[in-house]
């Protein structure tokens, strides 16, 4: 055997053994280690929880929750709706004779008055902040004409409305048509007619002249008419003057959500002095009566109707005054308190929504102001509710829940178990029990990853005032399955049960109360080396 033969055999054997050795799979090496990590840090004062804009800070650092919502705003445009019709005027020669007229000759020049019906109102004046006048001119004149549409009642910056139209020649059978539109923004309309005594009346002029540049005479008879169609679109008044009618305006049953209340799912809340104001700010220059028909506290399961001497009774609103077009709006406030109504019961129903309905009666006594009603869109009529709740209350198992979006894109294969440690330094005179639920695949929050555990309230003195913070540590133990779902879910339901200290005494939340929360995890991680 040659040396090369020996070497060849040795190398073959060598590589065979290499394959055998490295081809063997060994068992994985594994071990567990416990790692502690901070996860979330937050320091929350009441502003973080309720929003700074909803809080009123009083001189003694106490707080009130102030909720303001607009519940109604009058749509004045609807008062002055023009009929959705096209006004058509036909202009033709006054004489039955057939005339041959030369270029530059005006053969039609007519002034007219048109009276519009405006939803029961009798207007003397209005100014538009929006709207379009659409026109269409149909001519059978067998020569080119220059036509004009003039509205003497409509001016903008002192210049009356005038639209000049160049109309081509018709063959007498097929009309020549010119159409267009004009933006009416800024136009003021005098609706008193030519004699200044009428209402809802517009004056207009139409004229038609043979184009001076035309080279020959045009033969015209009464059959060669000119039809002008005019319509108004999207009229939006800025100001109006006149008599606005005596319509009864229904404000149908509607509701407004109460913030934070939608998160309360159970428990009871004993609230101290509460005030609810319904404020009507009126810039509409009419006599008016308002009737608040109902004001209800709506919970998922119960309704409490507010009872008060003003509910269901017409209330006269004072007519505002104006100087020029500057209006001094009148403000009318109906106040509801614990002593004058059942507001305490109304709010302790923990309403998620407040529902209401009302009626507005315009000019209940007719045109007693001799067409002196006025409107300036800068001074509307609107109604607000203003709920002011001093943060002085007693909470008994008051349970709030909310969903949190979370995203933790981690491979949790190696996490065996873990603990979520909540270190809390609490300056609030409230205890809190925390539960967390993971959104399941079926869309339900069924699995609690934390049993009820309590963050203790701050230490109080005999006057129920916070004198020092309390420190609590809450440890939530979670298993591998729960961690996996926690990491994979995109929503977490947090349920917090609040109890005020020293129940049933009421506690007062101050602007310096806060809670320092550190959420940390200790994870049992299994290292694996394959």
């Amino acid at each position, binding site marked *: 055997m040659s*040396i090369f033969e*020996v*070497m060849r055999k*040795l190398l073959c*054997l*060598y590589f065979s*053994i*290499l394959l055998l*050795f490295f081809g*063997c799979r*060994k*068992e*994985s*090496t*594994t*071990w*567990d*280690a*416990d*790692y*502690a*990590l*901070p*996860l*979330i*840090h*937050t320091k*929350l004062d009441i502003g*973080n*929880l309720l929003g700074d804009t909803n809080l009123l800070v009083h001189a003694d650092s106490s707080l009130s929750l102030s909720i303001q919502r607009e519940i109604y705003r009058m749509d004045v445009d609807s008062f002055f709706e023009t009929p959705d019709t096209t006004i058509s005027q036909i202009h033709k020669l006054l004489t039955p004779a057939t005339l041959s007229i030369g270029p530059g000759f005006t053969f039609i020049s007519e002034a007219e008055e048109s009276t519009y019906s405006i939803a029961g109102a009798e207007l003397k004046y209005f100014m538009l902040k929006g709207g379009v006048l659409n026109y269409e001119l149909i001519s059978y004149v067998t020569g080119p004409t220059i036509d004009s549409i003039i509205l003497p009642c409509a001016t903008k910056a002192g210049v009356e409305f005038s639209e000049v139209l160049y109309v081509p020649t018709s063959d007498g059978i097929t009309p020549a048509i010119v159409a267009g539109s004009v933006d009416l923004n800024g136009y003021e309309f005098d609706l008193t007619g030519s004699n200044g005594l009428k209402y809802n009346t517009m004056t207009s002029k139409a004229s038609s002249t043979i184009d001076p540049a035309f080279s020959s005479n045009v033969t015209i008879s009464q059959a060669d008419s000119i039809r002008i169609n005019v319509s108004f679109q999207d009229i939006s008044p800025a100001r109006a003057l006149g008599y606005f009618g005596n319509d009864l305006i229904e404000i149908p049953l509607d509701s407004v959500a109460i913030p934070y209340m939608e*998160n309360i799912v159970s428990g009871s809340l004993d609230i101290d002095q509460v005030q609810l104001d319904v404020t009507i700010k009126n810039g509409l220059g009419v006599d008016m009566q308002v009737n608040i028909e109902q004001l209800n506290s709506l919970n998922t399961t119960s309704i409490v109707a507010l009872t008060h001497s003003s509910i269901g009774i017409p209330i006269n609103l004072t007519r505002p005054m104006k100087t020029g077009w500057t209006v001094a709006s009148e403000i009318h406030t109906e106040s509801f308190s614990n002593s004058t109504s059942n507001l305490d019961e109304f709010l302790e129903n923990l309403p998620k929504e407040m529902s209401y309905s009302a009626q507005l009666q315009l000019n209940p006594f007719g045109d007693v102001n001799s067409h002196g009603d006025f409107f300036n869109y800068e001074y509307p009529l609107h109604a607000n509710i203003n709920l002011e709740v001093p943060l002085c209350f007693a909470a008994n198992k008051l349970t709030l829940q*909310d969903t*949190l*979006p*979370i*995203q*933790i*894109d*981690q491979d949790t294969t190696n996490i065996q178990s873990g603990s979520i*440690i909540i*270190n809390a330094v609490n300056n609030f005179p409230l205890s809190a029990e925390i539960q967390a639920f993971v959104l399941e695949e079926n869309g339900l929050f069924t699995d609690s990853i934390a049993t009820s555990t309590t963050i203790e309230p701050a230490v109080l003195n005999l006057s129920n005032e916070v004198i020092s913070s309390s420190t609590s540590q809450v440890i939530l133990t979670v298993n591998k399955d729960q961690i996996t779902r926690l990491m994979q879910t*995109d929503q977490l339901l*947090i349920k917090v049960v609040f109890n005020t200290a020293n129940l049933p005494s009421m506690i007062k939340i101050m602007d310096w109360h806060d809670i320092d929360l*550190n*959420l*940390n995890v*200790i994870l049992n*991680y299994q*290292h694996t*080396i394959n």
Partner: protein
Amino acid sequence: MIRICLFIGLFSFCIGNAQTLFVASNSMDSTNSVVINGYANAFYQGQGLSNEFMNKLIFGGYIDDQLKDQTEQKLLNFGNRLAFGFSTGIKCYVATDRLLNNPNWNFAVNADYIELNSSTYSKDLFHIIFSGNADRIGQNMELGPSYINRIVFQKLGLNLAHKSNNCEFGVSFVKGQSHFALAANQMTLHTESDLSAISLETNTYMQSANKQGNKIGAFNGAGFALNFTYSLPIKVKNHQSSSLSKETVATKEIGTITLQMDNIGAVAWNNSPSTYQIDTTYSYAGYEVDNLFNIDNVNWVDENTISDSILPQPRVSNYWTVLPAVFNLVYVSKLTTSHPLGSVAGARYQLNADMKPMVYGGVNIRLHRKLSTSVIGIVGGYGTITTGIRINYSSNLIRAFASCNNVIGLISKKGYGKNINLGLQCRF
């Protein structure tokens, strides 16, 4: 371990002689036209890390808390050493009379595969890896100074060997397969007592040259290596009287001192290697939430964000590293029929390998005409004090040996590390 022993045994049986504390002669005699040496060496060693622990770490199994605690108790606070490596190679000597126009020189070609993973680490680094930081809340964990070196390379070389002086030197081309080095001169991890933050203060330098991966085919660097071996026979005068009137003085060889230097060289890692210099204090306090009921939909624990904030952008530039050169100086006495008991002593050091200098000494025993053995005590290296043993077989055509630098470790779970060297020399 059985698998690796089987492998090394079979492998070295096929190929030849080995690199070991017991440096053997590679000489050819006049009857040989070709001599092939092959060797294989595999080891892991670390003071404090028992075989029971290392077996599970390397060969698989669950490392339970009891084993972790036992192991950690054996560790020093700082300066614990751990290494594991594997090397194998073949060298073929070819007899010639014409090399360099000098009949005294032969030439040899060699091919080697060398992998060395070494580290120096603190007890706290071991703790955070194997136990975590949950039981060190409110404390500092000194993860440094800690050093990790991993290098894998192959070399192909040409050697000149003197026929009679047992002297040879060679130069090899080195193909760099994989390199990683981490030098954490300072690395302190502090976990706040209320777990509100963890901070890492570190001064760390890191190099990595694994752009093409770290499989055997990866060509991440190139370099050179020199090797040199010189054996000096120790001779004494032997006074013999050939007649009553005349005394003749002859010399007698009683042993050999061998100086061996291997892998003196460097590798240029030039396939877009990365270098990191981290000198910073990083603190992680979790995700800051300022409104519990209005949290943006963000990734609360984003590994990329965390790693980006700790790790600076790597600097990509080529760099050189010195090979883990081995220096061996060994004396081996010559065994004869009349002197079947001899001695062996030596010293060894390896550069750039987190290793302490090693000294050793022991006895050589001639058991049979073809069989001898050595037993030595070893101080230093990656362990503390270990016992080594070697068995040699020698015939006209074959020389073979098996040696171990850690006998207790080889046979006992309570030992610390395993080491086995096997070699075979075939003469044709």
